[in-house]
C-alpha cells in the first residue's frame, strides 16, 4: 500500500522495523502535496527542512537511539501555532511572512518527539470562521468536492489529512474549529479538556475558549498525538497540573474490547433537532442503533440552555478577541502601513489594522468592543457569562445520568464555497453543535459515521465527556470506528474521490 494511505500508527511500525525510512515517508507526503495541493490549498507554507529533519531522525534510529512511537512520522501544523523557521500568519495579512523567534510548546514537544513538521496549514483569519473562506490567502477546498468548504477554522489541517497530504495534524478549537472540519471531511479531530494542552505560542483568539488538539484519520492517531502534546506547561497560566492517562492505551482498549457493555450514552435532545440535514440525522441514528446493538444504553437527556450557547459565544468570543488582537499594533511584529502624509503612532496603528485585518476580523473586533462598552457590558458580556454558568449546569446534570454525550458533529454536510460568506448569522449558527463544549471546557471528538445519502458527503458524530475524562472519547471513539468499519468493510476516507492531479487540472480548464 502506498505510504501516504497509512495511518501514523502504521507508519511508526514500519519505521521502527526499518522497512521504510523517515526520508521515504516524508518524501511521499511532500510529493503528494506537490501533486494535489494546487487544488486543495491545505498548506500556506511547506517546511523546506522537512527532508533534512527526516534524515536526522533516520540517523538517530540507525545509531540505536531510543525513539518515541511517532518518531519520523510527518505532521502538518495549523498556522495559528508559532514555529521557528516557518512563517506563522494565522491566516492574516497582518502577519504575512512573520517568523516567530520561538516555538509553541506543542510544536517544541513534537520536535522533541522527533516528528517531522511538513508545513503550516490554512485557516480562517485568526481562527474566525467555519469554512476557511476567511483566510487572507484564499480558501481551502474539501477533498470530497472541491466546490465545497472543508470546515473551519481548521479546514487546512482537516483537508490535509483527508487528502492524504499528511497522516496527522495539529488544530485549535475555540467553537468547533477541530471537530466541525473533521465532520465535513470524514476525518477525526479532538478538542481536549480546557487547559489540558498548552497554548503557549498559540496565537490567541478567545482565551477562555481556545484549546489546541489533534487532527487525524483514525482515533488511535489522534490519541498518539494527544499523548505527545498534552500535559502541564508552566508557560501557560491556564495549564492544568493533572497527570493524564495514556490516550493511546484508551484507544487501543476501545478498538479491541467490548467497551460498550453498561456504557450510558446520552443523546442531547436539543442537538438532535429538526432543521438538521436529513442525511445527518439518519446516519446519527444509525450510529446510535449500532452502539445500542452492541450493548450501550442510549438515554435521551435535555440541555435546555444549549439554545442560548451560540448567542453567548458570539458575545464572549468577540469581546475576548477584541482584547487579544490589540497586540497587532504595527510595532513589534507584522505589517506596518504608514497613512498618506504620515501621522502619529495611533494613526499608523489604525491604518495598519484597517489594511491588515479582513472583514470578519473587523466585524468581530467592532462587535466585541461594543459588547464591552460602558453601559452595555452588563447587558451583553455579563449576561453571556451567566449563560455560560447555565450551560455548565446543563452538562453537570447530564453527566450525572450518563458517561458520555453524543450529537451530530455539524448540522449539515459540507456546504458550497460562497454559500454563507455574505450572511454572518447563517455562518455563526452552523457552530450550534460544537460551541457548548467550549463554553463548559469539556472535551469533544468529531468522528466520521458515514456519507449522507442525498449528497454522498461525510457525516460526523460528536462525542463529549466530562472535564478531564478525555480518555472516554478515545475508548468509545475507537469502538465505534471499529464497528462502523466492520460494517462497511472499509474506512470512510477510502471512499473519497481520487485526486488525480493531471485530470483535475484538465477538468478545471474545461478539457475533460
Amino acid at each position, binding site marked *: 500500500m502506498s505510504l501516504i494511505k497509512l495511518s501514523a500508527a502504521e507508519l511508526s511500525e514500519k519505521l521502527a522495523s526499518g522497512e521504510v525510512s523517515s526520508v521515504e515517508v516524508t518524501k511521499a507526503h511532500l510529493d503528494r502535496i506537490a501533486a494535489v495541493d494546487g487544488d486543495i490549498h491545505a498548506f500556506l507554507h511547506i517546511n523546506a527542512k522537512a527532508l533534512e529533519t527526516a534524515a536526522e531522525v533516520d540517523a538517530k534510529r540507525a545509531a540505536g537511539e531510543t525513539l518515541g512511537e511517532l518518531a519520523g512520522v510527518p505532521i502538518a501544523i495549523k498556522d495559528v501555532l508559532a514555529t521557528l523557521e516557518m512563517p506563522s500568519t494565522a491566516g492574516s495579512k497582518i502577519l504575512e511572512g512573520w517568523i516567530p523567534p520561538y516555538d509553541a510548546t506543542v510544536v517544541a514537544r513534537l520536535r522533541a518527539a522527533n516528528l517531522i513538521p511538513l508545513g503550516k496549514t490554512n485557516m480562517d483569519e485568526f481562527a474566525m470562521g467555519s469554512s476557511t473562506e476567511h483566510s487572507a490567502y484564499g480558501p481551502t477546498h474539501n477533498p470530497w468536492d472541491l466546490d465545497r468548504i472543508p470546515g473551519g477554522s481548521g479546514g487546512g489541517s482537516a483537508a490535509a489529512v483527508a487528502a492524504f497530504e499528511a497522516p496527522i495534524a495539529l488544530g485549535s478549537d475555540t467553537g468547533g474549529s477541530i471537530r466541525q472540519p473533521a465532520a465535513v471531511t470524514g476525518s477525526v479531530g479532538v478538542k481536549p479538556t480546557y487547559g489540558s494542552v498548552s497554548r503557549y505560542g498559540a496565537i490567541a483568539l478567545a482565551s477562555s475558549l481556545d484549546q489546541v488538539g489533534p487532527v487525524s484519520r483514525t482515533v488511535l492517531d489522534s490519541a498518539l498525538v494527544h499523548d505527545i502534546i498534552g500535559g502541564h506547561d508552566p508557560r501557560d497560566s491556564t495549564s492544568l497540573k493533572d497527570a493524564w492517562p495514556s490516550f493511546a492505551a484508551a484507544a487501543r482498549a476501545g478498538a479491541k474490547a467490548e467497551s460498550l457493555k453498561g456504557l450510558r450514552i446520552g443523546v442531547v435532545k436539543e442537538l438532535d433537532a429538526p432543521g438538521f440535514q436529513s442525511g445527518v440525522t439518519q446516519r446519527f441514528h444509525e450510529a446510535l442503533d449500532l452502539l445500542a446493538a452492541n450493548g450501550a444504553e442510549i438515554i435521551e437527556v435535555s440541555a435546555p440552555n444549549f439554545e442560548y450557547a451560540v448567542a453567548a459565544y458570539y458575545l464572549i468570543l468577540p469581546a475576548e478577541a477584541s482584547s487579544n488582537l490589540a497586540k497587532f499594533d504595527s510595532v513589534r511584529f507584522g505589517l506596518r502601513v504608514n497613512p498618506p502624509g504620515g501621522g502619529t503612532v495611533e494613526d499608523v496603528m489604525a491604518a495598519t489594522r484597517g489594511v491588515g485585518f479582513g472583514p470578519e476580523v473587523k466585524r468581530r473586533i467592532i462587535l466585541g468592543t461594543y459588547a464591552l462598552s460602558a453601559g452595555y457590558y452588563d447587558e*451583553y458580556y455579563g449576561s453571556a457569562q451567566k449563560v455560560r454558568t447555565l450551560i455548565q449546569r446543563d452538562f453537570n446534570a447530564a453527566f450525572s445520568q450518563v458517561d458520555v454525550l453524543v450529537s451530530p458533529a455539524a448540522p449539515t454536510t459540507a456546504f458550497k464555497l460562497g454559500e454563507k460568506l455574505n450572511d454572518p448569522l447563517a455562518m455563526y449558527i452552523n457552530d450550534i453543535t460544537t460551541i457548548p463544549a467550549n463554553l463548559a471546557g469539556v472535551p469533544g471528538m468529531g468522528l466520521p459515521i458515514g456519507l449522507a445519502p442525498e449528497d454522498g458527503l461525510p457525516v460526523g458524530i460528536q462525542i463529549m465527556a466530562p472535564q478531564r475524562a478525555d480518555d472516554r472519547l478515545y475508548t468509545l471513539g475507537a469502538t465505534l470506528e471499529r464497528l462502523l468499519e466492520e460494517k462497511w468493510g472499509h474506512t470512510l476516507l477510502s471512499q473519497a474521490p481520487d485526486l488525480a492531479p493531471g485530470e483535475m487540472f484538465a477538468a478545471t480548464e474545461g478539457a475533460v
Partner: protein
Amino acid sequence: MSEITTDVVAHLANLSRIALTPEEIETLAGELGAIVDNVAKVNEVATADVPATSHPVALSNVFRPDVPGETLTPEQALSGAPDHDGTRFKVSAILGEEQ
C-alpha cells in the same frame, strides 16, 4: 432593531484603532444591528440569581518562583519588528501636532 448607527460604528472603530472606509462603516452598521438583536437573547435566561463564569476550569493563584526565566534576546525580540534601531522598536511620533 438595535440602534447601531454609522456614528456608533465609527466611534467603535476609533476605539479599536481600525481605519474603516465609509463603505465598511455602512455595511458593518447593518450587520452589527442584526447580530446584536440575535445575541441579545442571552438576557432571556441571564437572571440576577445566576453567577457569571469567566473560565471553564477555575484556577486561582497561578504563581511561579520570582526568578529570571529563559527570555528572548534583544535580537530575537526585534526580529519581526517593522522598524527598530538595534535595541529598541521604532515608531512615528507619539503625540500629534495639536498636543
